[in-house]
């Protein structure tokens, strides 16, 4: 059974014992969903001039960028895109082996007074979003913070929910959702992978 995916240097399946189970979204379906999400963002945010999209590293960033492109296409408004690296705010730093790499945060506009739309590829336990909220608030007091995710896979461990959801995918704890983007991985798709018990 080949467990190496076709492309992408940093896919989940490469560093854990995971086998692909099925592809839930291909590039076309992903594009359609992101377009619909952008529509929802426009619908619920009348004041687009105040909106700041913030992608959570790594794969929240291409989602935020694609949402910005779609919003511009629909409304002719360029919404700024920031990048949040939540590594320094993680709650599991003392339990993992070596320190993960810190790649830095960049916000193109003051958070103070903005409506921030946090973007991430997968919403799972909610811990990443908790860390992102803590970091964001250290930059100032946003008028509001909202959350957009491509996939909501359930299993929350904190009281956190998304405002804009691409697709709800019921999963089991043995499964991993792998979202890849053209810009980060060379291929655009969403797959379910299964964790194989070590032989």
């Amino acid at each position, binding site marked *: 059974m080949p467990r190496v995916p076709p492309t992408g240097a940093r896919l989940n399946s490469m560093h854990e014992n995971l086998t692909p189970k099925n592809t839930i979204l291909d590039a076309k379906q992903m594009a359609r969903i992101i377009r619909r999400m952008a529509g929802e963002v426009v619908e619920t945010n009348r004041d687009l001039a105040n909106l700041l999209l913030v992608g959570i590293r790594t794969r929240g960033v291409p989602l935020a960028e694609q949402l910005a492109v779609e919003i511009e296409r629909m409304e002719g408004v360029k919404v700024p895109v920031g990048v949040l690296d939540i590594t*320094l*705010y993680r709650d599991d730093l003392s339990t993992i082996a*070596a320190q993960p*790499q810190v790649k*830095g945060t*960049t916000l193109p506009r003051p958070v103070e007074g903005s409506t921030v739309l946090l973007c991430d590829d997968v919403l799972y336990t909610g811990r990443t979003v908790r860390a992102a909220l803590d970091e964001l608030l*250290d930059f100032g007091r946003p008028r509001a913070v909202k959350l957009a995710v491509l996939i909501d896979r359930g299993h929350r461990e904190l009281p956190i929910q998304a405002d804009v959801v691409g697709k709800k995918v019921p999963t089991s704890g043995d499964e991993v959702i792998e979202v890849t983007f053209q810009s980060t991985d060379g291929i655009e798709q969403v797959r379910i992978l299964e964790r194989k018990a070590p032989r």
Partner: protein
Amino acid sequence: MTSETIRWTRKDLLGIAELSPAEIGLLLDTAESFSEIGERPIKKVPTLRGKTVINLFFEASTRTRSSFEIAEKRLSADNINFSTSGSALEKGESLIDTALNLQAMAPDLVVIRHGSPGVPHMLARRLQAGVINAGDGAHEHPTQALLDAFTIRRHKGRLAGLRVAILGDIEHSRVVRSNIHLLTKMGATVVVGGARTLMPTAVEKLGVEVAYSLEDALRGADVVMMLRIQLERQGKMSFPSAKEYFRLFGLTRERLKLAQDDAIVMHPGPMNRGVEIASDVADGSRSVILEQVTHGVSVRMAVLYLLSGVTASEES
């Protein structure tokens, strides 16, 4: 950058000599990410919450110690300062007893400066905690070399292929040793220059060029790094007077013209204006001396962060 693939596996940072170019690259890249925190309205991240750092300074230091302290506080670590005056260190306690006492307080990291080379290494062997060398005698001062490299990279975009002139009191400087190791490992050419009486014998064995006049050393340099004349570290004066030293070996605007047009001027501080460097050069447009101080905090945050992820039992 090659640091994408490497992980930090050392409990201690004792010197530059033992580091690989990939490890140096990882430290510098990590520091780059930390520099943004110093520009935030709230200059603090929760990363080292609940970790204890002991700053143990057996030698006077303002800049290095406060830089470490700020770095520790910005990472939310709890820090405690021990200095020689007024502590048991002055009352005749042996170093080994000091180490055992520290161990009993279960710190996560110990930052140490000591007048004798090798003291941080001895502590590192005896402590569970990670040990950071903040200067041991005339041996190494790794975080200074890292912040110098960080500053050079910020201005030149690279280290490889640069010509770096290090000028002044080569004999008594720990900064120069760490810098030679780092810069040559990263592919820069280092020329050391200064008075013969301040030049250690066989210094060329470290892989550097040697010049005995400031002019020869400066010619074509991309980076000019001045060292302080360490009057307190010398048993006797190695030159007749500070005035004469400045006349022969001080960095003046005129002499700086021998270096590349876009050469930057660095100094680890504290400066002796009018001895090794002219005031108008120290304050001039080519000087990056105060930037070095700013970058020192980012570099030390990176070191504290990476070391805090490795415990004694995991070290490979």
